[in-house]
């Protein structure tokens, strides 16, 4: 693979490219889906492919191909395509200079999922299914999906970067349906590791643990009451404040989105209430968004997006770092060789504050506590929406009835100013998958955070 990528670099230099990036992948990937105990998909695949990206006359050309014999032609095509774009540009794209790195990174796992027998994986899924089914007789359908992969990635650039890294993924995703009378509802759960092998499923994400997580959410939905629509004081738990950090401001701190967003031009300005600190960190040990280098060969880093309530830094790649005069933050990520790298979050979180959990709940006569979410989405005008799958009423400072099918929304430029308390206890993380045109595994989290009335709008039928 390295020889072929080196051939691509040389072909690009001969074709006049000012920068050539050749990424290769060689991997074993597995997907298994079980519906109510029936195997619905059991696919193993060997995937090999290359992504070539060139900068010619100040524009990009990108070619993805599975045909490794076509390497030189792919490079020549990419150069031709870049030239066509370059002819229309008002100013050339330039890249911030970086120190090239050479490194061979390996992952030390106890059990490479590739070598774990299929039978063991099916047994894991069967146990999980049974655990969910046995949790409550109202649970009527259970789907379990798992993904594993062992992939070696290569990155060579004309700047001298030469990286090889082996990566692991184990991922489990159960989805359960509950029914009582005419009432039908559903919940999901998700855990994954890119730092441990199948041992993660044996030791942490066990069928019992994962099964209980999803089953209890379904039963809470079945027993929940409809939320009242409107705005109320509320507290978000770590899983929800994490997704809020990701959706409400995280995306708009990605430099490629920021330039067209409601946060454009706000670097250096106060964008949140006093005491709010929000960080994206690609260096935190053991989390899903962590890696040593990004897919442009830039070391990952800790980015203090909001520090002491001021927007201080954006997430960048080499192109936007040069354009905006910022440092490259190691945030360029590509799902696979099928895609070019784009700016993505890694592990995004609200930093702990100075209140106890008990103090957060004090003084809320009526409000909501949101513990877990279904999915979320952000928009350029800072509007965000998150569907909630586990929530409770807060009545006189105490947790009350569970709620069903709640959804929250707000305008980040307003909502961040309505934060009135951040817990100093229990910073927790959750695993997520972000879909900005490509899939990226991310971490998000935080401690419990309180918002005043007017900060968050609750959608509901009551």
């Amino acid at each position: 693979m390295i020889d072929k990528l080196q051939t691509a670099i040389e072909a690009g230099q001969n074709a006049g490219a000012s920068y050539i990036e050749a990424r290769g992948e060689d991997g074993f990937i597995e997907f298994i889906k079980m519906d109510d105990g029936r195997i619905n998909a059991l696919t193993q695949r060997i995937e090999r492919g290359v992504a070539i990206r060139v900068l010619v006359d100040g524009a990009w050309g990108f070619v993805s191909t599975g045909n490794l014999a076509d390497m030189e032609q792919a490079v020549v095509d990419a150069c031709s395509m870049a030239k066509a774009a370059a002819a229309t540009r008002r100013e050339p794209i330039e890249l911030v200079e970086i120190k090239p790195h050479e490194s061979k990174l390996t992952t030390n796992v106890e059990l490479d999922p590739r070598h774990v027998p299929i039978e063991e994986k099916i047994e894991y899924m069967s146990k999980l299914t049974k655990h969910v089914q046995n949790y409550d007789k109202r649970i009527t359908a259970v789907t379990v999906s798992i993904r594993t992969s062992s992939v070696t990635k290569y990155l060579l650039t004309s700047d001298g970067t030469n990286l090889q890294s082996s990566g692991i993924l184990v991922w489990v995703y159960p989805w359960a349906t509950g029914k009582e009378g005419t009432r039908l509802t559903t919940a999901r759960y998700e855990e994954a590791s890119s730092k441990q092998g199948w041992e993660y499923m044996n030791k942490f994400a066990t069928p019992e643990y994962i099964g209980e997580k999803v089953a209890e959410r379904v039963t809470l939905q079945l027993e929940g009451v409809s939320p009242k629509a409107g705005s109320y004081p509320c507290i978000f738990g770590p899983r929800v404040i994490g997704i809020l950090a990701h959706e409400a401001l995280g995306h708009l701190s990605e430099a490629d989105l920021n330039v067209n967003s409601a946060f454009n031009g706000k670097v250096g300005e106060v964008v949140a209430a006093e005491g709010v600190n929000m960080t994206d960190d690609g260096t935190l040990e053991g989390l899903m968004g962590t890696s040593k280098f990004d897919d442009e060969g830039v070391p990952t880093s800790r980015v203090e997006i909001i520090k002491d309530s001021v927007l201080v830094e954006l997430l960048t790649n080499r192109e936007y770092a040069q354009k905006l005069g910022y440092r490259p933050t190691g945030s360029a990520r590509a799902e696979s060789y099928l895609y070019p790298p784009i700016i993505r979050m890694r592990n995004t979180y609200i930093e702990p504050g100075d209140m106890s959990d008990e103090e957060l709940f004090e003084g809320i006569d009526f409000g909501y506590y949101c513990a877990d979410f279904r999915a979320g989405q952000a928009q350029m005008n800072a509007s965000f929406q998150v569907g909630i799958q586990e929530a409770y009423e807060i009545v006189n400072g105490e947790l009350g009835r569970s709620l069903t099918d709640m959804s929250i929304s707000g305008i980040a430029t307003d909502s961040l100013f309505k934060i009135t308390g951040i817990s100093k206890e229990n910073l927790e993380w959750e695993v997520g998958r972000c879909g900005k045109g490509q899939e990226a595994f991310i971490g998000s989290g935080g401690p419990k955070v309180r918002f005043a009335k007017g900060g968050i709008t609750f959608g509901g039928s009551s």
Partner: protein
Amino acid sequence: MVSPSEEVARRKKKVDEKQLLDLCKHIISFGKNREADSIEVRAIYESELETVVRMGQVNSVNMTTGTQIAIRLYLGKRMGSAFTNLYTKEAVEEAVEMALAAARATTEDHEWIALPYPSKYAAIDGIWDGSIVSADSAKIVEMTTSLLGEVTKAEPSIIPAFGSSGAGYTYSAYANSNGVEHCERNSAGYTVIQSVAKTETGMTPSVGSYDIQRGLEVDTQSVVRDNVEMIRICMKTANGKTGKYPVIFHPNAYSQLMQFTLVPSISGENVTRGKSKIGDMIGQQIANEFVTIYDDGTDPRGINTSIADDEGVARQKTTIIENGVLRSFIWDTYWANRNGLKSTGNASRNMRQGLVQISPSTAVIEPGTRDVSELIKEIDYGYYIRNVQGAHSSNPESGDFSIVGNPAILIENGEMVGAVQGLMISGNIFDLLKQVKEISSTTRILVSIIGPDIAFDDVNVISKE
């Protein structure tokens, strides 16, 4: 430097659908020799050339080409599958061995009956335009710069944040051990823009507009007109009110909502597994009487239209709701067989995961008689929802939703006044179907839906305080 014609020539010389079908037949033969009792293969070759717009300029031209070969086989009633992106005899034979190993390791599916049998295919004109194969980067860059130039000329305040023009085509083949053999080709050319503009207090929501055809003759003018009209409205801001109001949904908005609420309930799998709220309501009134919706995989206007679905079953037109009455669900072969029914040609295969799922082709909603502008004129106070946020966080089984309209336009005294930020809409899809007040005649042809703007009564609206 390579010339555009050389670039095109190289794209053209890849495999075609007949070669893919030959490969499928080789895999079937190899699998049977290796003692697979039943085996099916779908192989595709895809080529896509597209521009990427960033900050109002063409940032990149991207090309993705490649083969995908998905194999699914049975040993008795034990299923295994495999995938390879490598178009070589050795790679596909290795993939068959992996699928066999998977089948040996798994458990029996006692409900599995058979792979599809041969069906009669209808001739569908207009799903292939050979000019797509001749598109080169110069052509799609020119399409893009034309779009960018026209849109900023029409409205100088517009910021074309993202956009793309592209030309893509797919050669596909399917064969199985029951004698099904099919191959076809499909093409698409498109141009798309997502714009924003500054407002007094911030930024408008992004407004997306596009046109997609089988060839490169896209209607740039209509894309520009649509985008500019909506951005101009969004540049004015308005305040909303909480309550129950008339709401008109653009098909962009309700198609997303339907995808995550109604569509799961018409899937034969979910009906069988007790996950559909309308699973026992065939023949019953579930929508207002002037609502007729069908799934049509044969309508040449639909970009998802093809001769066969992803398991080689002929596409067809299936009436889902007729005059408000639920008439049918949609099926693939597996779930249809389990219920003693025939597939409706709605199998969709995730090639890399080996997952066959039931999926709509193109939803077609029968139009009414009046233009949407007439419907807007009659609203004293209400909203026009151009797009939504968070449809994917709806409850797919209960049909409950709570989403943000974005852009959400306030209508006052029959006029669109301006965009309301943070306007939520909540309800249940099965209630909403009964709240349809009128279906306009303004049919829009989108990727997954051909439908007009629809007016609803008494929709729950929650305005940000």
